[in-house]
């Protein structure tokens, strides 16, 4: 059996933010219908044979048979469907599952998506759900939070590499600047270094501006066999490589907390499959749930040597117009982080970047041909990386 090449033919994403007036399935339907309409030559939805939907189950709700609720609501009843849960990397892994389904030859067309509603849950319960993706038995039961584990990484990164709180704030400023011109972003406003540094502490050294917001949202991606792509669209984007990996669940048990090994390994696999190197990447969406995570991602993905993430920021290399623009969408920090919808939301952004179809030109990375998405679950327990090509 030879592996089929896979193409992306349609992408959709809701606005990320506080979306109180839509139920989970309504949110998903919005993203799905946008993806269907995005297939410019049209597609009959009955052609979708396999469905993978990322959802981390925040707040509880329809945790059992979630995929049936979603397929039922959008008229996909009959397709095989799975809810995929890998915390914040749920829909990144849903994307990979859809790619595997097509590349294995099992089906011609598959759907990947994600959905999360977080703002309709009482504050205390959201705090409960946010903390379930790290190690429950030891980290969580020592009072640790999601921000807390990344703070542990930040303190150590500062200690070993001289990274400063200003570097963290620079991530925030950059991503807010990008997100300010993204009509689908949760926090569409710029910020300054001074404001970011002076914002309230959440988990030392991380302030409010080092943390992504709690968002609602959905995203969807339709993939098909590459040789069928032109039937559906004139502007397919091809999956050049992908890789998934795991790291030890508890951060305190990792040899090095200044790196997330699942990112390193997933990226290595994706680069190898795509036969590209980090320096070939023109644009990337990386998992900046906390600002330190973006700095660590630069290093883990090979955009700069270990410990030089802060320097890369100082040089402005990850801004639009820089050597390797990162998170032109605003990233999780500004675009928002509806946990289960984030991974396919990143694919949505990179597909538009590669097509040159970003709504606002100041956010468009000109001439981008190869893009990368990096989606991490929890504190790095899981990571998936995709490399896409025009």
């Amino acid at each position, binding site marked *: 059996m030879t592996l089929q090449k896979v193409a992306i033919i349609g992408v959709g994403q809701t606005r990320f933010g506080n979306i109180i007036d839509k139920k989970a399935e309504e949110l998903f339907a919005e993203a799905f219908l946008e993806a269907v309409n995005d297939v410019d030559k049209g597609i009959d939805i009955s052609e979708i044979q396999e469905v993978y939907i990322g959802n981390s189950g925040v707040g509880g709700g329809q945790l059992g048979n979630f995929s049936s609720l979603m397929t039922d609501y959008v008229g996909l009843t009959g397709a095989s469907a799975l809810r995929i849960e890998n915390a914040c990397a749920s829909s990144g892994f849903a994307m990979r599952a859809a790619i595997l389904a097509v590349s294995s030859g099992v089906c011609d067309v598959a759907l990947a998506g994600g959905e999360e509603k977080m703002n309709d849950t009482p504050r205390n319960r959201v705090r409960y759900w946010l903390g*379930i993706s790290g190690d429950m038995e030891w980290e969580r039961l*020592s009072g640790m*939070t999601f921000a807390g584990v990344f703070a542990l990484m930040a*303190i150590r990164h500062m200690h070993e590499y001289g990274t400063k709180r200003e570097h963290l704030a620079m991530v925030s400023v950059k991503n807010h600047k990008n997100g300010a011109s993204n009509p689908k972003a949760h926090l569409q406003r710029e910020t300054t270094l001074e404001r970011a540094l002076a914002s309230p*502490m959440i988990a*030392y050294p991380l302030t409010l501006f080092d943390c992504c917001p709690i968002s609602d949202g959905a995203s969807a991606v339709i993939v098909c066999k590459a040789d069928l792509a032109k039937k559906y669209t004139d502007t397919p984007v091809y999956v050049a490589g992908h890789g998934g990996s795991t790291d030890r669940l508890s951060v305190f048990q990792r040899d090095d907390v200044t790196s997330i090994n699942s990112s390193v390994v997933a990226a290595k696999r994706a680069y190898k499959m795509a036969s590209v190197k980090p320096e070939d990447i023109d644009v990337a969406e990386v998992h900046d749930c906390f600002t330190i995570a973006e700095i660590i991602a630069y290093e883990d993905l090979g955009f700069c040597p270990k410990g030089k993430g802060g320097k890369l920021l100082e040089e402005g290399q990850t801004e639009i117009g820089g050597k390797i623009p990162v998170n032109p969408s605003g990233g999780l920090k500004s675009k928002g982080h509806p946990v289960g919808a984030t991974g396919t939301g990143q694919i949505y952004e990179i597909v538009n970047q590669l097509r040159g179809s970003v709504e606002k030109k100041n956010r468009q990375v000109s001439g981008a041909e190869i893009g990368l998405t990096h989606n991490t679950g929890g504190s790095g327990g899981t990571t998936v990386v995709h490399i896409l090509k025009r």
Partner: protein
Amino acid sequence: MAHVSIPSYWKTLPQRYCLIGMKCKNCGTINFPAREICISCKQKSEFEPKKLSGRGKIYSYTVIAAGSAPPEFSEQEKLAGSFPVAIVELEEGLRICAQITDYEEEDLKIEAEVEAVFRKIYEEDKVIRYGLKFRPVKKRKSLP
């Protein structure tokens, strides 16, 4: 809100109350918490209990700000406000994650010497969950 059930917690009491690590008979690595497949040699090994000293150094730390603690700790948050949590590297070389207690601001730094201390961790369904925290090593007397 049973996050870690009482039976699961109960099973780990030797680790939570008195730092019993499990030493791999195959490669000698101390596994903490206990495992069936050794973290180091990745073998299904036999393990023997090994009491850890409880002395170590802060490897990394954070301070969870008041208002952002997990719900099990909202009671503590009300009483004590923000609180530090650290990764502590024990003398035996392995690391564990725990709160720092009875501290002053200046005690929170990488490499600071700390020792394990038995404390109330949190309460759930009226049951008190005891366990270990760490505190800065004071000038405690020791035998000559």
